């Protein structure tokens, strides 16, 4: 009883010596409180757990998996361990010595004896091919012929495929003969390894991803700005309308959510294509020449128009919900104090909508930075975004490591932007609804 608990002192016991508080039946107050709160905590836990489990299995776990894929690099290590051992002492300039080729032969022979599904040279070939084209055929062709090889193995290998005589392949094998790699990130940032092992930029014609990241960022900013410019007035108008009419307008704003993607896309094509409604109308009115029809789809314009349309509700909803809570008396007060309507709007009304603008902006921006389907359908070549490239690597080139690296970079970018926003504006001021 006499021993004073430090946390009890903090609980407003005053300067006097803190005594442990007890309930009337003698249990320490803290324990009694804990017991009383336990029920509530259990209920809270029960309410949260299903979603938590769901999120962990379908969200956190896959993302962790993806990030792991972007650095995972066991293909070469598990295929040719002996070779890698021998390569340790290689200087990396001339072709490796006979000992390395002998080890490679031994590794390949061992692989041949494994059941087909456990063979490791196939994945190794694919992995090497990311770094050097034709490496895959070198590996597969040799691994099939390796049973007939006889010493000296160096000649046998270089005869089987010329690449084995190229020190560049060996440098790659040595570099990537580690369980973890950064090479996917190197590629995702449009860089490559030079012969001396340093990382340099690719030459300009082969840079794809960094410009694509830049374009994604640019398009997202443009789309966010467009949704803001279009959404602010309508949200304001809805906020001053009576509830019934406001709801009707809200339905119009929400329509893009309720329309099938295919219907929407074909509607845009009908409207925007070169022989489409808008172009024909403009030509009919004599505003543009028949030869100068504007291209508005299958390019950046198409992506911007379509995504602005789709993402508009994400801007309007938070704006509207914030504006609804701003009483008209603020504007009246400002006017009664002598501010012109425009000053009152600028100084009094607008600053109070900032939480809504922030929330809408962050929402639209983050969604559009990772948007995939619309750019794929109406973006053409110049309206593609980074997600389309990621999808291509997952579905077509099957370079999941690179896709994972691009995805991780995208995720990191979003987190950095969110962090920046938090530093500059503060996320606690966001109002999503």
């Amino acid at each position, binding site marked *: 009883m006499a021993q004073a608990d430090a946390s009890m002192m903090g609980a407003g016991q005053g300067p006097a010596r803190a005594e442990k508080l007890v309930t009337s039946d003698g249990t320490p107050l803290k324990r009694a409180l804990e017991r009383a709160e336990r029920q509530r905590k259990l209920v809270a836990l029960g309410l949260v757990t299903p979603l938590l489990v769901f999120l962990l299995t379908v969200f956190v776990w896959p993302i962790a998996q993806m990030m792991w894929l972007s650095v995972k690099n066991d293909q070469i290590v598990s295929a040719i361990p002996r070779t890698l051992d021998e390569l340790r002492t290689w200087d990396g300039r001339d072709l490796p010595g006979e000992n390395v080729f002998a080890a490679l032969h031994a590794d390949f022979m061992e692989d041949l004896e494994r059941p087909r599904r456990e063979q490791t040279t196939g994945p190794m070939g694919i992995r090497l091919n990311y770094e050097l084209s034709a490496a895959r055929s070198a590996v597969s062709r040799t691994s099939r012929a390796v049973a007939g090889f006889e010493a000296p193995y160096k000649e046998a290998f270089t005869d089987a495929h010329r690449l084995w005589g190229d020190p560049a392949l060996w440098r790659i094998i040595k570099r990537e003969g580690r369980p973890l790699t950064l090479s996917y990130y190197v590629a995702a940032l449009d860089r490559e390894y030079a012969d001396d092992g340093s990382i340099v930029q690719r030459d300009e014609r082969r840079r794809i991803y960094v410009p694509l990241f830049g374009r994604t960022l640019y398009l997202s900013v443009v789309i966010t700005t467009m949704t803001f410019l279009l959404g602010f007035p309508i949200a304001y108008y809805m906020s001053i309308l009576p509830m019934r009419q406001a709801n009707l307008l809200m339905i119009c704003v929400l329509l893009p959510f309720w329309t099938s993607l295919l219907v929407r896309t074909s509607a845009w094509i009908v409207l925007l294509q070169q022989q489409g409604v808008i172009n024909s109308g403009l030509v009919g009115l004599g505003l543009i020449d028949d030869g100068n029809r504007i291209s508005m789809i299958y390019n950046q314009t198409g992506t911007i128009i379509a995504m602005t349309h789709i993402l508009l509700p994400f801007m309007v909803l938070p704006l509207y919900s914030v504006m609804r809570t701003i009483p008209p008396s603020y504007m*009246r007060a400002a*006017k009664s*104090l*002598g501010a012109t*309507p425009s000053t009152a709007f600028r100084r009094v009304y607008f600053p109070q909508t900032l939480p809504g603008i922030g929330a809408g902006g962050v929402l639209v921006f983050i969604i559009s930075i990772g948007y995939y389907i619309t750019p794929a359908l109406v973006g053409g070549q110049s309206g593609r975004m980074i997600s389309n490239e990621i999808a291509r690597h997952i579905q077509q080139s099957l370079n999941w490591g690179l896709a994972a690296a691009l995805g991780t970079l995208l995720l990191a970018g979003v987190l950095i932007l969110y962090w920046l926003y938090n530093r500059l504006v503060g996320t606690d001021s966001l109002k999503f609804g």
Partner: protein
Amino acid sequence: MAASQGDGFVAFDRVQKSYDGETLVVKDLNLSIGKGEFMTMLGPSGSGKTTCLMMLAGFETATSGEITLDGRPINSVPPHKRGIGMVFQNYALFPHMTVGENLAFPLEVRGMGKSEREKKVKRALDMVQMGAFAGRRPAQLSGGQQQRIALARALVFEPELVLMDEPLGALDKNLRERMQYEIKHIHNNLGVTVVYVTHDQTEALTMSDNVAVFDDGRIQQLAPPDVLYEKPENAFVAAFIGENNTLKGRVQSVNGRECKVKLGDGSVISALKVNVEGEGVQSTLSLRPERVVVGEAAAEMPNRFEAEVLELIYLGDHIRVRMNVCGDDEFIVKVPNNTGGRSMAVGQKAPVGWAVEDCRALDPS
């Protein structure tokens, strides 16, 4: 009734207002407010008092009629050019600005220099005893403090007319009473004209020079507080201001300023003829509970009746007695808390009486 004098500082001249084109919210309003006057618009909700205030502030336009401020018609002057200070029901302090910035706002939009601005803001804050709070945000202040800031903000640019739209409605009773006195003192010190809207009659009686009682889009009576209470001109005002016993009957005879009214149960009461046409018409008699005398003193009164005590409610300084008088079970009498009052008991019979001038014969309503 309010006469349209045309020489008031603020004047409403035959002003009407309709929102839907079918019903009039304000019907033929004529009101003149003198310079430096504290005028209160009092009435139940929907009586048109706030609409009048909003028309004066410029947030609503009069459907017909003219409003003049210091002789100038202001119907087509936008609110920000009227130079009228206003205190809103929920204070409308700008939440994203500090108290100091809130107060500086009206000075800033008038293009006043920084040093002068600061001086005025400080003076205004000192006036409401909030000098130490300039750096706070409105959300960090209590309701009463926000009230003071709103008041200071409406006064800081030295308008000649200040409008207040139920400014004390959100405060608790004690604070409300204290703020009433403070607003009154500020009004006396600055000499500004104040138009004050409230539905709280105590507030109206405490603070005002003149009270306009609104009902049904019309001013029912315009008078100083004491006249309003002592001499209501119609049944609505009598019922709305203070507590009131109403007895309904028919005028039997008229004799100069007095008349006799016969009630449903046959008893005849002598009353002051205030708002009745003549013999034979229906009338509502209005009688304040504290003007009724109980016990032996009733014997000297011109109106004397036998009453039965139905209920006693102890209220500290006085006792409210519900009685049956002239067939009316809801007749209330206020008895001072003294020996006579304490000795009353439910079921007891007692004589009650009142003077002719305390009983006013009004319209039947």
